[in-house]
């Protein structure tokens, strides 16, 4: 535990950049490669949207259930609350009991909101 290396330099991130570069080039090259290699015979049927062989009706980009949206909003809120816990969790021992209680209060409020959301049946899919 003594040798905890807290410091991190931009140099440490260079390998990540390297890996990113490799990944990007892999993805792009593959796409280009298939584009060049594959045969191209275009027919109208082939270019139409696939709906299990049934006649396509309407545009696919239409409105969808509000529930998904609700989930997205809840995610935004809860995920940000979770972010608050990271620094606390890492330094949890230093904060001791007081920090624990404070975080419990925070989580208590979070939980109250959470229970409210559940009770409001915002997460029920029927």
């Amino acid at each position: 535990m003594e040798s905890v290396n807290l410091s991190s330099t931009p140099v440490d991130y260079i390998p990540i950049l390297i890996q990113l570069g490799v990944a990007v080039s892999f993805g792009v090259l593959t796409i280009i490669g298939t584009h060049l290699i594959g045969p191209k015979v275009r027919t109208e049927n082939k270019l139409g949207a696939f709906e299990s062989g049934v006649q396509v009706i309407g545009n696919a980009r239409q409105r969808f259930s509000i529930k998904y949206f609700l989930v997205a909003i809840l995610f935004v809120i809860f995920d940000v609350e979770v972010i608050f816990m990271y620094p606390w969790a890492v330094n949890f021992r230093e904060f001791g009991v007081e920090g624990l209680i404070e975080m419990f209060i925070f989580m208590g409020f979070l939980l109250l909101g959470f229970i409210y959301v559940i009770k409001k049946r915002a997460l029920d899919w029927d």
Partner: protein
Amino acid sequence: MEAFILEKLILVAIVFTISLVIAMYSTLAERKVAGFMQDRYGPNRAGIGGILQPLCDGGKFFFKEEIIPAGAHKVLFVVGPTLAIITACISSAVIPWGQTLTIGGREVVLQVADINVGVLYIFGVVALGVYGIMIGGWASNNKFSLMGAIRAASQSISYEIGMGLSIIALLMVTGTLSMGEIVAQQSGFVNWNIWVQPLGFLIFMTCAFAECNRVPFDLPECETELVGGYHTEYSSMKLGLYMFSEYINMFVSSALMAALYFGGYNFPFMYELGLSQNWITIIGVLVFFLKIFGFIFFFMWIRWTLPRFRYDQLMNLGWKMLIPLAIANIVLTGVITIIKDTYF
């Protein structure tokens, strides 16, 4: 500096190749495991025991015609799978594959990048993964694809909360965000985090399954309902990239689980056997991969054992079970740690 970059370049190349190969052979393994579970052979024509099967599949992907539907958004349609494979490939950058290896007097750390926010990095990259699916699904202009994409997004963000919360309990134990540190702390056998965080691990694993869109959480692409979901309209290597990214994700999450909870490269009695550092490292790497393979097998095992969830069950599990459980886990961990620190 040049040496450092060269070293890292080689390491990246190795990691990259390994993950691609593992991803490729996971497809074979999957079919083999399926065959085993269902008491049949699985692929066994190409090469001995079907060993060349992935290569054939890959070749087929390349030589198939690529179709971009007329109604699709051309650019995004191509960007989708590319993004998916990129995010899949870079998430492995912070995983420590082994301890240091001394080659010709030079100490090589078997980790691409030991940054102090490794866990956050993984979360960030994993969160990006959903964009690939979302973009591809939306760009296809197909109802199935859109459905799949939305489900994927919804599912992955739902389980991300549970995952984050379960990791918090782990962080309370480890006190660091660096992957290297976390694994180094788990030397030997009794120090593995699984012993102090069993519940956290279960939650994490469940969430990892969901994040990877693996059965029983593969609703975004369930072929019986959505005919492949977000990749309904994809063909040739673009489909291949999606599948690749999925298997790489599986590989990375297995590695993550092994590293976070099962000691990574650590194995019992590693220091007691009197081995030299290089040997410990090499054995460690092998042990690590053994653990990874174990998890990959577990993934497949589950796939052929459990039926798929309904969507409401999926959401209920994520929100109403895992999140409260994860919070309870945090509370438990906090209380126990404090009590332990104060009284023992």
